[in-house]
């Protein structure tokens, strides 16, 4: 199957600063793909390279089977794009924006645009400079979606949307994917992405540190273990066990993250006279924060 997006060793450096490093992704058609990372991780730079707004320092990207370096016009024809920190022309109204972009694309389905305007309760007849951030964002979403593109590339699409609109936006994404079209969206909010995305890539300091389905990421999450001992225990003994990370140590109480089998660590614990032990899988939030905090060297990719 031809990938909707395929990048190979995509890299962008500004002078000595590498914003995106050796990014290789494959996104199948009909998916909602979440691209997750903290601010400044390289999400927008990656997206700008996909949209050919910026040229990669090395590597390549293919969208809908076309090379982004040579086929940008055709790619743009079949792609919808919502920039991060969307800015519109302040003096024009939403409707003027929509009319102009629709015309530039050689016309769009008017009834679909009317639907979108109604669904998102867009204030379309006032200059956008008078509109709230959320309203401008909704106009940006319509500009990206209105020509029913095969591929939607959305940079922080839900920024400024209220909860009701979040919900509407998520159903729009699901409908898009159900029609076999592909959505690539970036976000720094896990919550939003895990509700909508089929697969997730987590990017940190320009590198993909994890790529998997939401379920797969959950499975890979470490056990969060908390042990109380009768006497104070030196955590060094536990640290020595492979797959164990001591996250908190307060004399008689020690908290651990355990990846892999728990047998070896239980043996060590047993030797130190434990009186209480709780263990639960890390939720995705903790895993996500973990990916952000730990060194980029800790890379995991799981098959989906």
């Amino acid at each position, binding site marked *: 199957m031809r990938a909707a997006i395929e990048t190979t060793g995509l890299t962008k450096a500004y002078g000595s600063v590498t914003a995106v490093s050796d990014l290789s992704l494959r996104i199948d058609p009909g998916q909602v793909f979440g691209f997750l990372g903290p601010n400044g991780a390289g999400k927008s730079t990656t997206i*700008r390279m996909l949209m050919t707004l910026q040229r990669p320092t090395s590597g390549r990207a293919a969208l809908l089977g076309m090379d982004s370096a040579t086929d*940008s016009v055709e790619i743009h024809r079949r792609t919808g*794009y919502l*920039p991060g920190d969307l800015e519109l022309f302040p003096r024009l109204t939403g409707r003027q924006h929509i009319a*102009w972009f629709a015309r530039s694309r050689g016309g769009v389905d008017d009834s679909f645009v009317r639907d979108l305007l109604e669904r998102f309760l867009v204030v379309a007849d006032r200059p956008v400079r008078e509109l709230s951030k959320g309203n401008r964002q909704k106009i940006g979403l319509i500009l990206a979606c209105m020509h029913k593109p095969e591929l939607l590339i959305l940079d922080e699409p839900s920024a400024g949307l209220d909860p009701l609109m979040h919900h509407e936006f998520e159903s729009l994404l699901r409908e898009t994917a159900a029609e076999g079209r592909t959505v690539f969206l970036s976000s720094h909010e896990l919550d939003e992405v895990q509700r909508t995305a089929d697969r997730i890539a987590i990017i940190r300091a320009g590198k993909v540190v994890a790529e998997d389905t939401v379920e797969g990421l959950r499975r890979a999450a470490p056990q969060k273990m908390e042990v109380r001992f009768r006497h104070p225990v030196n955590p060094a003994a536990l640290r020595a066990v492979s797959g164990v990370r001591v996250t908190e140590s307060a004399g008689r109480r020690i908290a651990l993250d355990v990846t892999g089998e728990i047998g070896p660590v239980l043996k060590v614990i047993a030797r130190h006279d434990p009186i209480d032990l709780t263990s639960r899988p890390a939720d995705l939030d903790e895993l996500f924060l973990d990916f952000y905090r730990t060194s980029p060297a800790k890379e995991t990719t799981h098959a989906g």
Partner: protein
Amino acid sequence: MLADIIRLDLRLRRRSTIGYAAGMAIYALVVVALYPSFKNQTSLDSLSGSTAAALFGVTGKLTSSGGWLNANIYSNFFPLIMLALTIGYGATSLAGQDESGTLALVVALPMRRRAILFQKLFAMAIQALVLAAATTVCAVIGQGFQLTVPTGDLSAIALALMLMGLDFGLVSMAIGAATGRRGTALGIASALAAASYLISTLATTIPRIGPGRYLSLFYWSVGNDQIAKGVSLADFIVLVIVGFCALLTALIAFRRADLN
């Protein structure tokens, strides 16, 4: 579609285009209407010849038709307004729109960057043409106020000034595309235009600067007494070639530009 960006940018610049044209037209009308009152005050002619007068673009006989129009419109205010318009638009159209974040939406449309830039050049030319036409119409009205410069010459000099404006506008566009900064584009293009003006005007009284005037686009549009002698083919050729080089530079810079 073909002319969409022209329409968009003209819409965005509508107020400033009308403002520039209306302002220049009113000023030009006042200047031509005042001519009969100054025509016979030949003492004014002694003003020219000094370096200070040259700095303001005053050369030749101030009370002659050509001298009056030159000193009051064609060698100073008209090019100044023309350059403000073209350099301003040149800097805004790429770097300014990129800085404000709107250019990304336009570049993500199914259109080559080359086509986008050509449309922006057209939009700039139309704005410049509105200004040139408004000024020319008012100068021609001056024929009813005893001014004798023929309509053809007035049109030719307006066209030459428009070409000079487009040249500097394209330089501003190219710098904007290369640096992504509107301020830098405005600054450098304005500095080049100011230097060009100074060289051309001072060359008339300071012999040492004389040969330098060939480097000045003002010399090739108004600085060589075109109002009396007419704009030559050589003048047009130089203005067009410079514009072509600036356009080529802008195209290369924009094709390579990393946008936001």
